[in-house]
């Protein structure tokens, strides 16, 4: 039971982190119709910038400054790159962001090399906040939960209480209303892209010390982020939240419990073959839940898309 509780908390951390990425991606998608393949790359940039800043001024400055830099870079990319491609249609846009993801990874390697950076949590948070049955829960993770929650609340406030937020919300359900933003649609697009990427950058700043700051971090998380917003429903913020939490818990619990296929097969009446390593079904017999944990989100996505193409809470099909 104690372990279950710990896993709930760990899954929550993973899920909320995922949500920080997904919310920015969803915002961008809702407003601009662009599925930003490079979104996780901005997350990576956030972590690297924060690391670089932290070597000079410490963690907290990085937390403040890095997301801003990432946001500015994002806005510039929208202004001088994406906008140019926009006229060719959505598929070239997707290809552009895909190329951007490749390029950002190369640029990061160019400047920081290939090894993992020694980016770690601030000393002030480097202690165990509490522990459950010997398992300590780092203070930093508590901080992560509060940061993600805080971001969510700010976002919720903006979306429900401000004019721009209302328009964005309308755009979630009715893409045509984007045109009613007034005369400066391009500026709004640029800002949305900047804010969305800054949120990804913030996620990177926070996740870097825990999940590692290395050139593969974008790729590792990238496809999961798309999977999440597709499962949640493209353009649905609540869907993104729900899907993020589902995937966070799914992955945590899949890794946490060693459910073995062997036990299941024996329980339903099959007998394990004598010499398992020569058996054609050896892989089935030796399968465990942690082994397939990382592919569960993809499996879930395929099911969702086949059964409910608009996603769990999505209102529109693409």
């Amino acid at each position, binding site marked *: 039971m104690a372990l279950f509780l710990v896993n709930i908390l760990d899954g929550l951390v993973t899920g909320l982190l995922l949500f920080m990425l997904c919310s920015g991606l969803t915002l961008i998608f809702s407003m601009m119709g662009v*599925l930003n393949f490079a979104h996780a790359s901005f997350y990576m940039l956030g972590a690297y910038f924060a690391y670089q800043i932290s070597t000079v001024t410490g963690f907290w400055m990085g937390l403040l400054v890095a997301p801003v830099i990432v946001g500015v870079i994002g806005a510039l990319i929208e202004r001088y*790159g994406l906008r*140019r*491609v926009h006229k*060719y249609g*959505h*598929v*070239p846009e*997707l*290809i*552009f962001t*895909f*190329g*951007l993801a*490749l*390029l950002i*990874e*190369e*640029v990061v*390697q*160019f*400047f920081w*090399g290939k090894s993992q950076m020694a980016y770690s949590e601030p000393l002030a948070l480097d202690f165990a906040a509490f522990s459950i049955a010997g398992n300590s829960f780092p203070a930093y993770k508590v901080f992560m939960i509060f940061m993600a929650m805080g971001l969510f609340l700010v976002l919720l406030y903006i979306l429900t209480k401000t004019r721009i937020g209302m328009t964005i919300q309308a755009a979630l359900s009715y893409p045509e209303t984007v045109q009613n933003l007034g005369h400066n649609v391009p500026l709004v697009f640029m800002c949305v892209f900047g804010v969305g990427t800054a949120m990804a950058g913030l996620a990177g700043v926070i996740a870097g010390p825990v999940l590692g700051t290395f050139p593969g971090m974008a*790729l590792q998380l990238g*496809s999961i982020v*798309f*999977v999440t917003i*597709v499962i949640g429903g*493209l353009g649905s913020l609540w869907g993104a939240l729900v899907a993020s939490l589902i995937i966070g818990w799914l992955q945590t619990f899949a890794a946490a419990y060693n459910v073995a296929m062997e036990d299941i097969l024996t329980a339903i009446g099959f007998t394990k073959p004598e010499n398992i390593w020569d058996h*054609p*079904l*050896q*892989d089935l017999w030796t*399968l465990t839940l942690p*082994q*397939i944990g*990382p*592919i569960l989100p*993809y*499996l879930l*996505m*395929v099911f969702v*898309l*086949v059964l409910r*193409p608009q996603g769990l809470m999505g209102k529109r*099909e*693409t």
Partner: protein
Amino acid sequence: MTIASKTPLTAGTKRLISLSTVLPWAFAALFLLILPVVFQTSSALTIMNQMAITIVFALSYNMLLGQGGMLSFGHAVYMGIGGFFAMHVLNMVEYQGLWLPLPLLPIIGGMFGMLFAFIIGSFSTRRAGTVFAMISLGVGELIAACSIIIVVFFGGEEGISGDRTMGPEFFGMDFASQSEVYYLTVVWLMIAAILMYLFSRTPIGRIANAVRDNEERAEFLGYSQRNVRWISFIVSGFFAGVAGSLFAVNFEILTEENLNLATSGSILLITFLGGVGFFIGPIIGAIVFTLLQTVLGLYTEIWSLYLGILFVASVMFFPGGFAGVIAMHRRPLSLGKLHLLTGPYLKVAIPAVTSILSLAAVLEILFHKRHGFAGDGAMSLYGITFDSHGYQALGLAIVIAAISLFLVSRITPEIKAAWDEANHAGDDQ
């Protein structure tokens, strides 16, 4: 012998089409035949084989992206599946005495590629655009991940290997030497390329274009957009499987790498760089990419950075890829005004090349400064050796780059004017 039997076949299939269509193919076949006479080393043959395989794969990918409007992030799956099955069949030939001449292996791989495309296409082709792209990504990741888990079939991390020479001899060839494999590969390259070209000329091939352009309209002409995409997808799966089998024959090993996102991504890159709107595009893309990868890779560590820059620049400025740039000159050519462009082109060539080389030098020097060995500041670039840690070399490169870029920017209006002039015959272009 294979060759002799191939040429009449080429001619036969194309008889109903004009000479101008047959000629490039015949020329290509001849060229491929004499290529190994010029480049005899087995590494040159290996690289040419790899190009041939990449061309088949890229053409099959372009059936989706270029002709069907389907952006796939998981096309490696069908090539890989075809290759893995081909490899298992190869091992059955070796260990269970199955009788199968090696040149027929690609048919088997193709069939399995097709089978998987049939199954996965049944649900993924319902929609084009973003949803298709996402499903292809998901399925791609899924199967790549499964390949590590299902060791019996995929061989886990180390993959599965085989020996191509164990089958029955084929007209006296046992395919131990690279050159025999080369001929097998290019014969299949020709067959596959011709078939794919012909496919684009069939009713379904044209309707695939129509669905790409305007799926709603196609539906109101009696065509189910899903079925049209599905059929393209299946046919594309077949040729991807053929490419996979050729891979199995050439490298005698298949690993997870043949299925993963990186491979799927690079075929997108190759096809797009070459030009998705043109049949020849993926062919150009495959050749350029293979050369960049093998040759540039020999000279610089940051070759993939250059590739990334090239790709992003291409998406932004030349969405038609290399083939598109070439095709842009078709109109001046037909107007007989191509000569108007040669002057400005020649004029810009030197500063343009200089600026590219000097910008690359800036990157190389920066990279060397940052990641080179500390005691080892010596660096040689374009045949010049210097100390990368001082500021002279870097400064010089930056100055040269700035000057040449300035020159390029000065000449640009002239090119633009010449371009407008060369295209000016009737209305807008």
